[in-house]
């Protein structure tokens, strides 16, 4: 696997607060990286650094194939204006707006791509609805269609499943699987140790001024999760007891 981005000896934080130091890792194409950590451990800051919105305190970012023109990005919904008068189709088309500049209209090929993206995200039937008529899940699907339109080698998703139901989550995860199969690198910020992790190849655990990187199995051990302040000891022993609560429930 070739890497998209190499991080070397990276320190991240703000003027008077260092979140972590000494992180070296590669983000490889065709991989899915889960970023986990307690509140304030720097998950979103890490994503913003990858986007180039925040400079690291120290260390290097090497884009091995040159910095891509487009980085797919799905932010948390807090600043999104759901009352803005725009249709689902136009929201998805925003993903390609840089390719069309300030004036040019979308050509037939691009229109087709928009429809295909909406179809894959499962919102083609509501393509002409204004945003304010959408449910939270439908809006998240529409935003996924926009990420599809961005057609980027690196895709950053900041808590994409925070407000969606199980079936939507499963659908969106299938899109992420396709991205991975196409050789794109996907970085996924997740808030909890959810089933999402089954779909990730690597994990980055932030917290306690440390950043631990490796395969999911190696990084997310009970001892490390406790040490980096992600959960308490009793929570860890409950979570990792055998059989797991889910297995137990299945047997009942």
């Amino acid at each position, binding site marked *: 696997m070739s890497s998209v981005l190499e991080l070397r000896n990276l320190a991240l934080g703000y003027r008077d607060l260092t979140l972590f130091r000494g992180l070296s890792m590669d983000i490889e194409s065709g991989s899915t990286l889960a970023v986990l950590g307690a509140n304030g451990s720097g998950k979103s800051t890490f994503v913003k650094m990858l*986007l*180039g*919105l925040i400079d690291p305190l120290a260390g290097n970012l090497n884009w091995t194939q040159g910095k891509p023109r487009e*980085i797919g*990005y799905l*932010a948390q*919904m*807090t*600043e*999104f*204006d*759901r*009352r*803005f*008068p*725009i*249709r689902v189709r*136009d*929201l998805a088309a*925003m993903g390609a*707006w*840089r390719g069309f500049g*300030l*004036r040019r209209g979308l050509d037939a090929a691009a229109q087709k791509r928009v429809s295909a993206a909406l179809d894959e995200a499962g919102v083609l039937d509501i393509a002409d*609805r*204004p945003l*304010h*008529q*959408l*449910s*939270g899940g439908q809006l998240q699907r529409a935003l996924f269609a*926009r990420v599809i339109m961005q057609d980027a080698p690196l895709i950053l998703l900041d808590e994409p499943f925070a*407000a969606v139901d199980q079936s939507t989550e499963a659908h969106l995860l299938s899109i992420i699987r396709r991205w991975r199969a196409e050789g794109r690198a996907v970085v996924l910020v997740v808030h909890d140790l959810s089933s999402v992790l089954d779909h990730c190849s690597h994990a980055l655990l932030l917290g306690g001024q440390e950043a631990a990187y490796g395969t999911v199995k190696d990084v997310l051990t009970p001892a490390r999760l406790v040490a980096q302040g992600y959960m308490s000891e009793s929570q860890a022993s409950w979570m990792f007891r055998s059989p797991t609560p889910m297995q137990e429930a299945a047997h009942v």
Partner: protein
Amino acid sequence: MFELLQEMWSFAFMRRAFVVTTVLSASVAPVGAFLVLRRLSLAGEAMAHAITPGIVIGFVSAGLSVMSLLIGGLIAGVGVAILTAFLARRTILRSDASLASLYLIALAVGIFILSAAGSAVPLKSFLFGSILGIDDPSMLLVGGVATVTLVSFAFLLRPLIVSTCDPVFFETQTRRPWLVDQGFMLLLVLNLLAAFKTLGTLMAVGLMILPATAARYWASTITAQLILGFIFAVSSCWIGLTLSYLFPETPSGPAIVLVAGGFFLVSAVVGPLGFGRQLRKPSVSKDAPVATIQQEEKAQ
């Protein structure tokens, strides 16, 4: 009645007023639409007061000419806009509180100088404009501002839409996101100055905000929002001017804004995104109730 209207049309100053307000409507409608969509409706009003000291200083030093108005107002408006952005970025105050503080200072300075300059200032036309006494330079000012605004919007529209709808996404898409913010603020100041001469400092924002908020009750797309906003604005001007001619005691500036206010109230009651939703059968409307949106917004 018809004869009265014919008589009105025979006066050059009335014809001028109709032309200048039509051009002004085309110019302020898109600015007003994005003021509303960017949650800057009150910032527009504040900015109208913030340009006062510039206009007053221009007036005191160079007389009531269009150039002194333009230069003084631009310096004051752009100065306040830049300082506001600076304070909001570097200190704990948010941009609304920064702007409020700065415009209050600017307004006080303006009134202070205005009072010190004495009775030479035609205060009434300052506050309410002089739409029936539009001279050639003022017409050129409005025409020039409208040209600059519409050409700018041809290029700014897409970035404005993306940055208004999803500011975080927009930041990742461009290296200079502040260019759009400041460019829009500059257009706002220019349009306030154009509206100042016709409607005065108190009413200038009225023609921007009310047609835009009225249109908001009907429009589900940005195109509809812009077109409807213009139609409401230009209708307000024509009806307002006609009313103020038919009833000679009524001042024309407030008459125009009142008609715009009428459009707003009717739209709020009848419009599909206002209370109109509740007047229709639920099976006809696909709209989620506004309460649901509000609930989900709170949950986020």
